[in-house]
């Protein structure tokens, strides 16, 4: 249903993005979908969504490119133009509700790339160990919340691991993790972008203690990864859509910095809840130098 223009602000990773539309049904769906991430902060980007039947349905690959300072995102079901100088974007979309989700991911990936962060194909969670019971090891009894990232190819165990998480673990995402540089390293933020769990993450953040690349096995084990291999795997899992040399180089520099500042390990795990004891006992340890 169409009506007077209205808007809402969705804030992920501390970056508020406003959605303006005169499609009240679409806006209601967005408000429901992003309920935990609605914000009253002044928006950094203003998105004008225009429903257009001219944009066909389809699941084509997305194309993201820049001409001078104007970014264009195109996929079968939407076309968007974003001018970072004015902070405004116009999105023409067909009625497919997933278009907003895709536009948000692309926008955040571009904004983060310029700010030394990234979206990672990874689950993430916060271990706030103050609530653990039954005589946990001393290292587990820290008041500081610690975020862990769990990445890997499809089937490596991201969803399995998040399903096994104990109640004191706060899920940030089971599919796409949000990482930004912080004063002492990097922080992970919750996202509404969900995978198989179909459950949005919590809207909170914590410093990243480690990134684990997952493999299923017969035992729980944490192994070192050589720095070059860590960078290679990290680059493979960073969500980045743009055909833009300058930003690709920036993302590569960020990946190298991340590997130098955050421990990156291979986590082989047997799929039962004991793996979370192994995770909770991890760190602090030096990253690659």
């Amino acid at each position: 249903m169409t009506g007077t223009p209205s808007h809402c602000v969705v804030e992920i990773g501390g970056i508020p993005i406003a959605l303006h539309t005169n499609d009240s049904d679409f806006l209601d769906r967005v408000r429901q979908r992003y309920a935990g991430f609605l914000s009253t902060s002044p928006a950094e980007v203003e998105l004008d969504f225009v429903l257009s039947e001219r944009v066909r349905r389809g699941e084509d690959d997305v194309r993201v490119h820049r001409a001078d300072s104007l970014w264009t995102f195109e996929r079968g079901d939407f076309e968007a133009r974003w001018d970072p100088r004015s902070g405004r974007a116009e999105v023409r979309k067909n009625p497919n509700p997933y278009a907003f989700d895709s536009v948000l991911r692309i926008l955040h990936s571009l904004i983060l790339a310029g700010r030394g962060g990234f979206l990672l194909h990874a689950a993430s969670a916060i271990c706030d160990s103050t609530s653990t019971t039954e005589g946990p090891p001393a290292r587990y009894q820290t008041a500081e919340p610690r975020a862990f990232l769990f990445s890997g190819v499809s089937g490596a165990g991201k969803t399995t691991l998040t399903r096994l998480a104990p109640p004191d673990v706060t899920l940030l995402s089971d599919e796409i993790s949000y990482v930004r540089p912080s004063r002492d390293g990097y922080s992970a933020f919750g996202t509404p972008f969900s995978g198989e769990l179909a459950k949005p993450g919590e809207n909170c953040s914590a410093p990243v203690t480690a990134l684990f690349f997952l493999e299923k096995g017969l035992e729980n084990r944490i192994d070192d990864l050589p720095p070059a291999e860590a960078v290679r795997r990290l680059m493979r899992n960073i969500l980045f859509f743009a055909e833009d040399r300058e930003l690709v180089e920036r993302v590569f520099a960020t990946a190298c910095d991340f590997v130098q500042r955050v421990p990156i390990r291979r986590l082989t795990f047997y799929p039962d809840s004991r793996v979370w004891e192994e995770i909770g006992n991890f760190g602090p340890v030096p990253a690659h130098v």
Partner: protein
Amino acid sequence: MSEIYISRSTNIAARMLAGEMMVMNSKDSTFFTLNEVATAIWQAADGRTPLRDIVNDQVCAQFEIDSEQAQADAKEFVNDLAQHGILLVSDRPLSGPHAGEVP
């Protein structure tokens, strides 16, 4: 026999991490890790110095490698990286952003 000149492509990003040189083609995100010998050649790829001299001065002088074998290996390495758009190769001195520059 004509000389070979090599220069680093402008489409690459490179970082030294924990003693290893990592090179990425920013056009297609292909990624390479160079060993010590390859790194020495890479760093000397100024577009002006013939590959033969680079191998003699930067490889044979620093590593215990047979000269003939080193020249053959270097040509193979250079051709491989050129195919991936990481190095530019010419039978004449090259000019460009990285020509003459030693990282």
